[in-house]
């Protein structure tokens, strides 16, 4: 590339020489312009007269050519034959002007056929007037190869190459044939082509690169738009283009691609069918393992409850803690005002008692005592426990809850007292909580009696089923299956009451029985509760929870085997025994894990009885006051 290095070194000299030549050219141009101006200035016209002149000489095939002339402003010379064409070929020594071999006056054209055409030979054309007098000066000189303008290519057509994956653009291959007049095959003319295209409504043409092949690709056309394409050609290494061909129009509209969706749907259908068949096979074959995989067994609901382990001996603290809502495993703590709107739902405050202490006389705060209006051993005898702060966080277990504070406590107390008419008259609480004396243990059943005199209440914080409601407002507890009145004065040990378990009702107690074989309770499952007399009946309302024999509560006769020291009611009383109620309020659990149920006291109805009598109402569990009762109860 040393030539280029020399170029760099001689750039300065180039500029100088260029300047010199340019100045020469400028001088020549100036002179020519001045000449023209002078010639034009003679006329004093706006439009200077234009002499007859040749418009163009064109060859299409480099073998013939034709020239056109124009008379200019000399209209008197426009008639055919007024002007004559002479030419001069400078190929030989003979330099003589010859006249046009073939005139086409209609076109003002002079045609030179093959015999009169010589390539690479300078021609000069001249116009003369008919009488050969005026020679129009301007000579039009050329060589034939420099005036070649090939005809436009023919057979222009297009084919779609591909469409882009986005479906927005496509490529097109355009084909054509060389012009038939140009002898391209023999190589006499070597032609290169130029394609131009534009959108239908655009004004500017896009030109592709010139190339000698007879096909070309147009890239990046847009789907949906219409394109116009035309082509022209010229001789290689020459400058004059031929005419443009006629335009063709290209348009590709969107093709809905159905092919891609069809196999997809097929695959989906076959896949689903195959999977279904597979499942059917597995189900039919009863393969245990596959069945487990396909159709896993539904797990049993797991109710978040209290761990049964806590119900065992010695864990009452945790149980209380849980039941009171603390801890993670605690029962959900309801808002205190959850039940505020429902006055009939009454919570009974449960006193947590220490099982080991075995306090018996912790019934002072027992709700049942408050319920029944009995004088409490403690000061708060009138405190039926209707404190509004009682917010026992337990579900509706049916316990007697605190009345609405609208209700006078007095009445409530009286009502409460009447709720448990079936208290033993002897004032002995006959909470019979027994434990089945396991042979190995040889424990004696415990019978708890309350011999506290007027205070015969044991903690009856849990339920006793109300079998009837007295007109006076008292509530008759449903009689147990048998009245078991403890006669023995064996010390009863009270144990902490079960809170949640017994409140569930007999069904749950039965269920519980299964879990706690240590306990034996006599349950009264008196469903048909006859309308017992409203008057309290001794021992008729006992509730005894039977320990589990198979999950049905049996008459207390079954318990006879176990416990001897029951006090059987009198037979006439037994008639009055309605079947055992569903609910039982377990007051306490003694040290020997016997559930103690308080018998209702037998004293006179508490002074808090509401004045108006109550209608005879169907027996209901102790502690419950149904809404219709409520209407009767409220003053």
């Amino acid at each position, binding site marked *: *590339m*040393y*030539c*280029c290095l*020399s*170029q760099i070194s*001689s*750039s300065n*000299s*180039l500029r100088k*020489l*260029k300047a*010199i*030549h*340019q100045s020469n*050219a400028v001088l*020549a*141009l100036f002179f*020519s312009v001045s000449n023209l101006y002078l010639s034009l200035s003679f006329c004093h016209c706006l439009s200077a007269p234009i002499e007859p002149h040749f418009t163009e000489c064109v060859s299409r095939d*480099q*073998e013939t050519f034709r020239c056109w002339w124009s008379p200019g402003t000399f209209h008197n010379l426009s008639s055919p034959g007024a002007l004559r064409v002479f030419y001069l070929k*400078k*190929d030989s020594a003979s330099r003589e002007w010859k006249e046009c071999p073939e005139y086409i006056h209609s076109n003002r054209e002079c045609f030179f056929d*093959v015999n009169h*055409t*010589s*390539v*690479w*030979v*300078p021609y*000069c054309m001249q116009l003369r007037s008919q009488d050969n007098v005026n020679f129009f000066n301007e*000579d*039009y*000189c*050329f*060589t034939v*190869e*420099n005036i070649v303008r090939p005809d436009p290519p023919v057979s222009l057509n297009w084919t779609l190459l591909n469409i882009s994956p986005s479906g927005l653009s496509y490529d097109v291959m355009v084909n054509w044939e060389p012009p038939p007049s140009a*002898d*391209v*095959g*023999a*190589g*006499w003319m*070597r032609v290169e082509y130029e394609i131009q295209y534009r959108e239908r409504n655009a004004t500017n043409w896009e030109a592709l690169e010139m190339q000698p092949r007879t096909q070309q690709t147009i890239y990046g056309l847009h789907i949906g738009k219409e394109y116009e394409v035309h082509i022209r050609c010229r001789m*290689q*290494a*020459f*400058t004059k283009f031929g005419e443009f061909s006629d335009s063709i129009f290209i348009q590709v509209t969107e093709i809905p691609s159905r092919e891609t969706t069809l196999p997809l749907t097929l695959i989906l259908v076959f896949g689903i069918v195959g999977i279904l068949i597979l499942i059917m096979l597995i189900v039919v074959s009863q393969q245990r393992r596959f069945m487990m995989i396909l159709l896993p067994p539904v797990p049993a609901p797991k109710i978040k409850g209290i761990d049964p382990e806590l119900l065992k001996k010695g864990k009452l603290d945790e149980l209380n803690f849980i039941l009171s809502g603390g801890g993670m495993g605690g029962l959900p703590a309801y808002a205190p005002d959850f039940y505020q709107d429902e006055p009939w739902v009454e919570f009974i405050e449960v006193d947590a008692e220490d099982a080991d202490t075995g306090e018996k006389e912790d019934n002072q705060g027992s709700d049942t005592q408050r319920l029944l209006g009995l004088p409490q051993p403690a000061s708060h005898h009138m405190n039926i426990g209707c404190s509004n702060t009682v917010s026992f966080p337990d579900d509706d277990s049916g316990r007697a809850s605190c009345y609405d504070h609208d209700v006078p406590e007095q009445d409530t107390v009286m009502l409460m007292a009447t709720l448990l008419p079936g208290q033993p008259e002897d004032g002995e609480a006959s909470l019979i909580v027994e434990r089945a004396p396991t042979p190995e243990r040889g424990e004696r059943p415990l019978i708890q009696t309350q011999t506290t005199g007027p205070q015969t209440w044991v903690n009856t914080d849990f339920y006793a089923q109300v079998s009837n409601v007295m007109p006076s407002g008292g509530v008759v507890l449903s009689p147990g299956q048998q009245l078991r009145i403890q006669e023995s004065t064996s010390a009863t040990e009270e144990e902490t009451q079960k809170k949640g378990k017994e409140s569930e009702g007999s069904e749950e107690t039965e269920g519980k029985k299964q879990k706690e074989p240590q306990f034996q309770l006599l349950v009264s499952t008196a469903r048909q509760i006859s309308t017992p007399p409203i008057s309290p009946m001794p021992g008729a309302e006992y509730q005894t929870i039977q320990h589990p024999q198979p999950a049905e509560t049996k008459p207390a006769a079954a318990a006879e085997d176990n416990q001897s020291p029951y006090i059987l009611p009198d037979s006439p009383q037994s008639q009055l025994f309605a079947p055992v109620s569903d609910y039982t309020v377990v007051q306490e659990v003694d040290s020997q894990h016997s559930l103690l149920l308080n018998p209702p006291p037998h004293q006179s109805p508490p002074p808090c009885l509401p004045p108006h009598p109550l209608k005879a109402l169907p027996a209901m569990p102790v502690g419950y006051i149904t809404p219709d009762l409520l209407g009767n109860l409220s003053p």
Partner: protein
Amino acid sequence: MPGNIRSVSAVRVVLLCLVFCRRLTIIGAAPICTNGQAGCHVLSLANLFDRVIQHSARMHGISNDLHSEFEQYFLPSKNQVGRVSRNCHTSTILTPNGKENAQRMAREELTEVILKLLVAWGDPLWHFHQTLEMSDMVHELRKGVEKVAEKMQMLGIIVNSVSSQASPEALLPSDSAEWRLMKDYDLLYCFRRDSNKVQNYLKILKCRIVPEHGC
């Protein structure tokens, strides 16, 4: 005058370089095997013709670019063609002036005409500018055409041996110093014309000797 010519020659360097450095990569003339050269397989006549024609096409392209750039830079008046003074030094060589004339001409004559032209242009181009490779290209083309002539002779296509053995200078007319008087622009003009002639003659020759469709 000589000073003027020399001052312009520097300009020519630029012009030719502009064209050449572009085209240099394009021109990749395949070497034509000489007799006895190892590792070189003999090419068919058609193939030889193709190579030669390709070469001549490139040469013509370069000459055209040179001429047009020269014209563009120095703005000569349009009708330089009409100047009578233009007289190429190869004007004395009789060349067919049309397709029919070239086709009617004997192959040997045509080949000889081609060779004469190529010979005639070797020296002037070298003198035009020594560092340019244009004269080398002409020489290469001439050698190629000579090879083709030899091949044709071997094949018995042409009878008379082309005067390739004769010294190139013998082909030129006696007044060979005429080309020195030509102006640069005329030189380029004449070279452009003659390269076009060579290209066309070679094509016609090939079409006559190696028949293919379209001829």
